């Protein structure tokens, strides 16, 4: 098998697009977006009536945010006003994901929904046997997602029709990394898996010391993720061989962001770590809060992370650049727009900081 590199770099969306968790499948976060100065005010704030536990996504002038009220909200980024909402039967913990004209998300009723990005009209739904907290990831027309029922699913992103499903040993809350030929995903039983993208067949599995909530990133043939066993792992994408692992002070559910051969990842010990992708050597670590479970986001020399507020750190040194005491969440990831940072919080509030 050829070495898989960031398969989507050639098809990266436009700069105002933020199609899935950490912007796109390169898992770089906001790389390429313009740098942002410390925010001086909130352009607007909106309350959407339910706790937000996932990251919003951005498309043009619309921000999509899902909440535990079971609604997916489309918000006009100019005004903060709602354009439409789609009411799912149960809570939504899943970060939405965009594909063509569709917005996809998982729901606690065990289904993945696709709704139209402009109207919120339901286009299709796909069923699993348990809650879907992971963000559905689309690659080459196929949506990939895990479920709490212990299975991993591949469905036609255009119709929702099931292509294959693969039984895994534990709950799957980790958002998959979908490359051209392989899918990489973590599992609640502690295994990291590589699945054949076409068939779902397990290509390799690596057992870590505890469950995996973190969503893997792939860069230069290396798969990176964190485990609840306190370690950051770097695996060879082809074989699963452990290239290096780095120990933090507590479990990791934060997902890594990768840029310029550096992997940024938070730990429940409250530190944000910057590690060299090739060696796992620590470049810096900064205490950003009591606990970090949210994925960091990288943008033009700045790393953003939420930990009961939003922080911006100098990507080269880890030095705190600014902190906004808004967005009381440790699950969400900020979305970097043009001169604006959008953050969502546990209280159901969404802010546009500028």
């Amino acid at each position, binding site marked *: 098998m050829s070495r898989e590199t960031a398969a989507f770099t050639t098809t990266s969306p436009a700069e105002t697009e933020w199609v899935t968790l950490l912007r796109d499948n390169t898992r770089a976060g906001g790389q390429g977006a313009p740098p942002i100065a410390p925010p001086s005010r909130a352009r607007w704030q909106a309350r959407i009536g339910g706790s937000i536990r996932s990251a919003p996504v951005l498309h043009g002038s619309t921000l999509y945010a899902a909440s535990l009220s079971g609604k997916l909200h489309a918000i006009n980024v100019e005004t903060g006003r709602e354009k439409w909402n789609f009411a799912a039967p149960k809570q939504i913990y899943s970060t939405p994901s965009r594909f063509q004209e569709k917005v996809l998300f998982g729901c606690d009723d065990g289904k993945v929904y696709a709704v139209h990005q402009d109207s919120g009209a339901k286009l299709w739904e796909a069923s699993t046997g*348990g809650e879907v907290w992971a963000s559905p990831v689309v690659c080459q027309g196929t949506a990939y997602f895990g479920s709490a029922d212990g299975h991993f699913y591949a469905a036609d992103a255009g119709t929702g029709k099931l292509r294959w499903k693969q039984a895994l040993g534990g709950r799957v809350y980790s958002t998959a990394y979908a490359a051209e030929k392989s899918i990489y995903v973590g599992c609640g039983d502690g295994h990291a898996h590589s699945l054949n993208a076409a068939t779902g067949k397990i290509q390799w599995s690596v057992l870590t010391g505890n469950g995996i909530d973190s969503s893997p990133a792939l860069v230069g043939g290396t798969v990176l993720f964190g485990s609840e066993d306190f370690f950051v792992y770097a695996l060879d994408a082809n074989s699963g061989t452990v290239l290096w692992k780095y120990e933090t002070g507590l479990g990791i559910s934060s997902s890594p962001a990768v840029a310029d051969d550096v992997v940024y990842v938070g730990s429940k010990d409250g530190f944000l770590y910057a590690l060299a992708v090739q060696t796992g050597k620590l470049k810096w670590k900064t205490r950003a809060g009591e606990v970090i479970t949210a994925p960091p986001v990288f943008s033009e020399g700045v790393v953003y992370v939420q930990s009961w507020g939003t922080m911006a750190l100098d990507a080269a040194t880890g030095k705190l650049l600014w902190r906004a005491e808004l967005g009381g969440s440790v699950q969400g990831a900020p979305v970097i727009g043009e001169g604006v940072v959008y953050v969502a919080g546990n209280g159901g509030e969404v802010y546009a900081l500028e």
Partner: protein
Amino acid sequence: MQIHIDKQSEVPARDQLRQQIIFLIGTGQLSKGTELPSVRELARRLKVHHNTISCIYSQLTRDGWLKKRRGSRVVVGQTANSWIEEFADLDDLINRAIRLAGSRGYSLQQLTARVRARLLAEPSDHLLVVAPERDLAELIRAEIGETVGHEPEACSASVLQQNPSIAIGAILITPSYFAGKVQPAVPAEHTVVAISYSPAAEHIAAIRNLSQPSVIGVVSVSALFLESPVSSVARVLSFPTEKIFRTVLAIQEKVIVRFFSGRKMRRPHQAMDRRTFVKRTCVSSAALFLGGMDALAYDDEVKIPPPPAIDVREAPLAKRSPLGMPGLYPGRVVELSDHRSIVGNRVSQPIVRQMLERGIRELTGESSARAAWAKFVEPKDVVGIKINPSGAPACCSSPELVREIINAVQSAEVPARNIVVYDRFGYEMDMGGYQVLMPPGIRVLGVQDDRLDASGYDAEIYCQADFFGEWETRSYMASVVARQINKIINVPTLKDHSASGVTGCLKNVGYGTFSNVARSHRAPFSFTNPLIGVMCSVEPLRSKTVLNIMDGTRMVWHGGPLTQNQSFIYQAGILLVSTDPVATDTIELDLIEKKRQQQHAPSVWERNPKSITANSGEFYQDASKNLFYRQPGHIAAAGKLGLGESDLKKIDHRQLLMG
């Protein structure tokens, strides 16, 4: 130009003047182009120095409010509404209004009252359905939405009680029988529209005309609604029956299916009276509470108010379960110690498995763990595992231990679908990663999504007391405990608590089952004693709690319940297994006291006002400081309520060293 300077005010004259001119412009009382008095004229009129006026005029000119015309006086430079356009953001508008009101001498309290009054006086802009419980409100909302083509908002009565401001701008819609209860909760001028259900006469007639003994199914999303047909049928059926035989055959999320047949039916009024009302004054608790203080009295001891009486409304049981607290083995606590159970702050699941097996066998005297577990759970049970995630991620019920308990419950042939891992707060469970780390097939449930979510509680079972004049004086039992599970395995952590002394078995299962419990402690005073014990005594919680497995792999000896400070978290490597929560908590209290003594921290019984701080940052860094006068007497008080043994000397404390 109406300007007045209050020289007694703390607001400097300069600021008063500036704000008032802006206010006059902003409200249109000074229109664009209007000439302002000369500097000297205004200074003379207001009896302030002319330099003050000059300075204000210059500043307002710089800011664009005024303009200076060559050779003439300053004039207003903006239209009345231009500043409103500039501050189009709602927060900015509100901020501006607050500042202006302040400059006119209005207090924030006056402002709050007037804003609220004005909002209430505004015409309604939406419909709000209020019903006794959330599900019924949703049902009514959906039906109104279908009929009128516009879906109203909906909430339960308890949510409205907790947050009356949600009625602002709403026309309230409520069932006619409930209108009398809703009206007092909203201002008199508010419209409350009473609605009636369709009569059930057609359905009752059909039941009456049944030609043979039949089983009748009633389906609704509303648990409350289900009670009505049950009692209605009981009332109209005339054949001599003594007992309503009701079984919850299926509970799938919010759809509850109840079947009942007409044999041996009770009298209707008995059938309807399914709750009892109990008042527990807790005199014995109060005596213990004060007794504990006497033993450690300081010269400058603070006067701690006595606890109020607590009213309890609970579900009546035909017979209290012998498995319920204090359970099959009162006064017996098995303590297992194995240093290998936690290494480098990581819990070892294989070692915990060995400890758990050994502990359950020692507790029961059975030779096999499977036989031991069969004493507590049966294949038909729905088993709740009550964890404690509140200190996650630094210290919470270890997922490794919870996984082993699940394995053990499954070994007693309870299917995965009938196992629920639960706690009050979903977001704390997220922090502990339980959703991810539990095996597939079992349910992981947070009763509340956020602090105000009341939908997961049973309005019929509660403890009521007014501790500090709080608005909501009731704490309701979680529906999952009241209705869905029939056995509870309690898995607390071993940790101190700033208000109750320790948070062990009793607090985990009591405060973790009822809503609105934080109201029992307001710094520096705490009424966790006696509320913790009283809550544990409420049925069906008492009968359903059959086993306690305290996770002492980590011991928090200061900073509980939420600390993340590893300096106060000792990797103790122990488990406590018992059916008796009082005896277990008594051992826990002793362990924590010894550890605190070793660390030169004051006793959790200390009543020295000098140790109290209002600064939580200080509390989290300094083991000699605390936020409350702790009340560990709740353990002995629970013993007085019959929940277990609190005398350390009488406890059968079996200590097993495993590694």
